[in-house]
């Protein structure tokens, strides 16, 4: 609490919602750098000679096909094609992967992976409790990470690390897994470290962040950042009731292999989804919120908001919603019932914000 953090209970973790002002934190990520404590995320290691094949069976994507040192966004689906979690997986080596689960889903992911690797020569280990995650996100994040690297070679390696790639590294004298990934729509790094070293890492990264003009950032601004970047949030856009095609995530489903949920998703892929995840932008300052009903110009209900906020960067309301396919046409005029008031919204492509 030394930084004035306002904490929130999130999936059983006491997490910083904000440190000072979430708008200032949001702005810091867009313009300089924000430093996030994301230790609530689940880290599950899958290792063994058939770890890649096991994950190909467990997830909708082909994890065996990516190179060591790369990351891949994928989905864990149930047999009906419903989404159990969305996750990023790092391929550490051909026989070793680190799966990052959403905090509220870590137990579900661990149970599903444990069950799905039974027929493979692979083991699943939950390392959530022993692993901390600190993210530096924003255009100045590379300079912050470089300032804590051992020497020029290490600084060059940080600069050369590609988006959605990872490598073992020494940062502030600590052994970490350094990944160029994030959930903000900016360039950024996620640093996985042994929980015992987490405070030392934070205490090195925080002054470096301040020196770069940045600040500590909490979960509140992480939500507005990811929404501007058009990234889905499990529990809002994704659930057991949504399939990847409705969520416009069909590109991550690789049907030309066998995996849990493949049959259901192969059928779903043949039909157009009844509703599609759709971007909406409004006017003024009043945001639509999750659960608000979307109406067409005739006043008929055609969808429901899954996430909404006043975009700090754009200064106008943005939202994601599941909308009937016929109505989810770019530039179409819709309305949202915001607690009894009908406000005009326009169907807009997302991401709402792209870094330049």
């Amino acid at each position, binding site marked *: 609490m030394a930084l004035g953090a306002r904490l929130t209970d999130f999936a059983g973790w006491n997490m910083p*919602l904000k440190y000072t002002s*979430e*708008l200032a934190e949001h702005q810091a990520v867009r313009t300089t750098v924000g430093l996030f404590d994301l230790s609530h995320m689940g880290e599950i290691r899958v290792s063994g000679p058939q770890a890649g094949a096991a994950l190909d069976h467990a997830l909708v994507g082909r994890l065996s096909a990516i190179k060591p040192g790369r990351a891949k966004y994928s989905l864990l689906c149930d047999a009906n094609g419903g989404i159990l979690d969305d996750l990023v997986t790092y391929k550490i080596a051909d026989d070793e992967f680190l799966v990052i689960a959403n905090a509220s889903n870590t137990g579900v992911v661990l149970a599903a992976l444990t069950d799905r690797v039974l027929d493979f020569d692979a083991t699943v280990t939950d390392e959530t409790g022993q692993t901390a995650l600190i993210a530096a996100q924003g255009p100045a994040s590379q300079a912050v990470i470089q300032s804590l690297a051992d020497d020029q070679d290490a600084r060059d390696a940080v600069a050369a690390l590609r988006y959605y790639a990872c490598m073992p590294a020494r940062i502030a004298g600590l052994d970490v897994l350094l990944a160029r990934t994030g959930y903000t729509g900016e360039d950024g790094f996620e640093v996985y470290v042994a929980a015992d070293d987490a405070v030392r890492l934070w205490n090195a990264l925080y002054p470096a962040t301040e020196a770069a003009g940045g600040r500590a950032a909490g979960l509140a601004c992480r939500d507005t950042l990811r929404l501007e970047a058009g990234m889905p949030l499990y529990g809002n856009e994704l659930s057991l009731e949504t399939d990847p095609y409705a969520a416009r995530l069909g590109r991550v489903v690789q049907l030309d292999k066998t995996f849990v949920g493949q049959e259901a998703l192969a059928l779903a892929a043949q039909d157009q989804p009844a509703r599609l995840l759709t971007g909406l932008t409004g006017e003024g300052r009043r*945001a639509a919120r999750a659960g608000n009903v979307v109406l067409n110009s005739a006043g008929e209900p055609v969808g429901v908001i899954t996430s909404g*906020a*006043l975009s700090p960067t754009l200064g106008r309301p943005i939202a994601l919603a599941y909308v009937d396919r016929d109505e989810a046409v770019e530039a179409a005029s819709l309305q949202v019932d915001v607690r009894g008031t009908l406000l005009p919204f326009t169907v807009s492509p997302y991401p709402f914000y792209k870094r330049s």
Partner: protein
Amino acid sequence: MSDFEYPDDLKYTTDHEWMKVDGNVVRVGITAFAQEALGDIVYVTLPDQDAQVESGTTCGEVESTKSVSDVYAPVTGAVTKRNEALDTTPELVNSDPYGEGWMFEVTVPDATALTGLLSAAEYQSQLD
């Protein structure tokens, strides 16, 4: 969170609103504690001019980036003034909750009959 100020000349409610009683006119806003808890305020809905509001019922909303919270009428009466500045600069509620961030004024029939309101000390003690 104890470094906020709670002016002694105001009355308070457990809903984190303050009132400044001046004759039969009661000016209403939210406390420093409330604005901090809500976070950056991006939109405020106030009761209409001349609307009749009833103590304990919802008469407006405060939206932060993350959440929407109801504003309750702390007293019963007619809305005789609303802070129009909040339409364009709702962040005044954060920066000056007892001053330029005031929300609306209610004219009551008899201000001496107001009951159930907390003093600054009583309000602070129930925050802990």
